[in-house]
């Protein structure tokens, strides 16, 4: 009780909690859940974009895309490390992902159907992620906060590249324009949804805010995202697939129409267009890599033995 009071006081003073420090079990549990979900999202997120490396239309775009997907793998790596500081192993986290127990961002359960999806994911999906991550960079847990600072910097770069692509295609040939519009049509709503349910349907929010893990609610972050992106999309001459979207002079906000939460919960509970294929791809990679990991272990063991013998 006393310890909890002290812990909450530290958080109120804006101190960071570090791995060795005392923390409530629930704080640890929530962080493990969030960080590992976040890590899984980076790893699963490699799939929808990675599939287009082989089909990028120029050498430069191909190179940029490989670099981006590589960054995602790197983010996965930092985040697994950050979660490990809370006493869970990477194996345990992977196991939870492959068994379907752990979640990852619902957005990666939508398919990438054309090259314009690559630009749109960079612009909208990374754009939404950044809003969330900027908030999490303020988080009370030191390792997560520091990982977020680093990740945010790279994501900002991806966001810029994605936006540049979509704007370019919006000015391009009729086929390019149509492709860009189609991508916006398909990704707009999923991007809004990926920021999570409305505050009233988000039971964890209160405790997360109190412990300084989150500093804003889902709806606040979503509003920031819309306020930035809606006017930019419209300015590019593209439309947004929300007939009720409008600018509210009073609040200075862009107000959106009702979100199809039924679709959101379907996707979260495993029934999105790509849930099966994504998990299947991860499982296959893991299973087909088993002999490689065994060989590495056997090799390392032999090396160790040889070293001892000398």
């Amino acid at each position, binding site marked *: 009780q006393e310890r909890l009071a002290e812990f909450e006081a530290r958080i109120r003073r804006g101190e960071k909690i570090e791995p060795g420090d005392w923390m409530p079990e629930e704080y640890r549990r929530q962080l493990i859940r969030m960080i590992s979900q976040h890590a899984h999202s980076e790893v699963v997120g490699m799939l929808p974009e990675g599939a*287009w490396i082989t089909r990028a239309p*120029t050498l430069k775009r191909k190179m940029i895309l490989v670099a981006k997907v590589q960054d995602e793998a*790197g983010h996965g790596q930092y985040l697994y490390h950050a979660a490990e500081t809370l006493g869970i192993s990477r194996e345990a986290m992977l196991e939870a992902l492959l068994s379907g127990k752990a979640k990852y961002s619902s957005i990666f359960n939508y398919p990438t159907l054309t090259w314009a999806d690559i630009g749109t994911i960079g612009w909208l999906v990374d754009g939404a992620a950044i809003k969330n991550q900027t908030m999490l960079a303020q988080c009370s847990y030191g390792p997560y906060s520091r990982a977020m600072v680093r990740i945010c910097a790279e994501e900002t770069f991806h966001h810029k590249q994605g936006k540049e692509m979509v704007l370019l295609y919006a000015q391009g040939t009729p086929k390019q324009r149509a492709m860009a519009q189609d991508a916006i049509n398909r990704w707009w709503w999923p991007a809004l949804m990926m920021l999570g349910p409305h505050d009233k349907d988000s039971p964890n929010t209160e405790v997360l805010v109190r412990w300084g893990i989150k500093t804003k609610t889902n709806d606040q972050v979503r509003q920031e995202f819309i306020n930035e992106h809606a006017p930019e999309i419209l300015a590019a001459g593209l439309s947004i697939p929300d007939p009720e979207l409008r600018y509210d002079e009073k609040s200075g906000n862009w107000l959106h129409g009702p979100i199809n939460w039924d679709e959101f919960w379907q996707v979260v509970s495993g029934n999105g267009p790509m849930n099966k294929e994504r998990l299947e791809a991860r499982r296959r990679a893991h299973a087909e890599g088993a002999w*490689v990991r065994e*060989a590495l272990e056997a090799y390392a063991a032999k090396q160790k033995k040889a070293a001892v013998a000398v």
Partner: protein
Amino acid sequence: MKPSVKDALIAKLTALGDDELILAHRNSEWVGHGPILEEDIALANIVQDELGHATLWYGLRKELDGSDPDQLAFFRDANEYRCCELVELPKGDWAFTMLRQYLFDLYEALWLEAAQHSAYKPLAEAAQKIIREERFHLQHTRAWVERLGLGTEESNRRLQQALNFQWGYAQQLFVPIPGEELLVAEGIVPELGPIRERWLELVTRHLQNADLKLPINPGYQPTSRAYHTEHLWSILAEMQSTARWEPEAKVW
């Protein structure tokens, strides 16, 4: 530069670029599907470097004949490509990919080392620029060959199988293109013979140390870069699909 030398140099630069581009394509098929997250990162790194090299070689060609690298990559047909067959082979398992990469990296590192002294300055500079990257790849894939060769029975078996399949194809790396002798005579590119000897020596030693046997019958050894495997058509169908979907595009 004499026109015949220039033509040969254009052809050589094309072959160099095509090898890198197609190998990068095959490696990029792994991204997101690697056996360990760290290897997704490492392989993505290799892919980027290879794409960088392809861009560099096509860029040198552009200086000679003004051809656009993206046009070369995305609007050339399979029969105009001049990659070797080794890089076209499907990615196979991790042993297949790592072995191919090792055989290729060592060839490339040795070639670049010699090419640093090219009488054609842009080529010498390019070689100097990328040799460090190549040595880094080589270190990485060399280590993998050792680990898989000396790891488990299974990993040794897979690596040996990959070696049996690839050995003949790998020899094509040392087949000069038509007119290459002109470039060698002018000191523009290194002679492949001595590079091959050194390569054979190093490869043999490393593979044997990793408990592998060089195949007694090397199998098919392609002798011309004008012919390809059955895979190249499909590789290009995929690789060029976006670019060719909208050939009117001014910019991508």
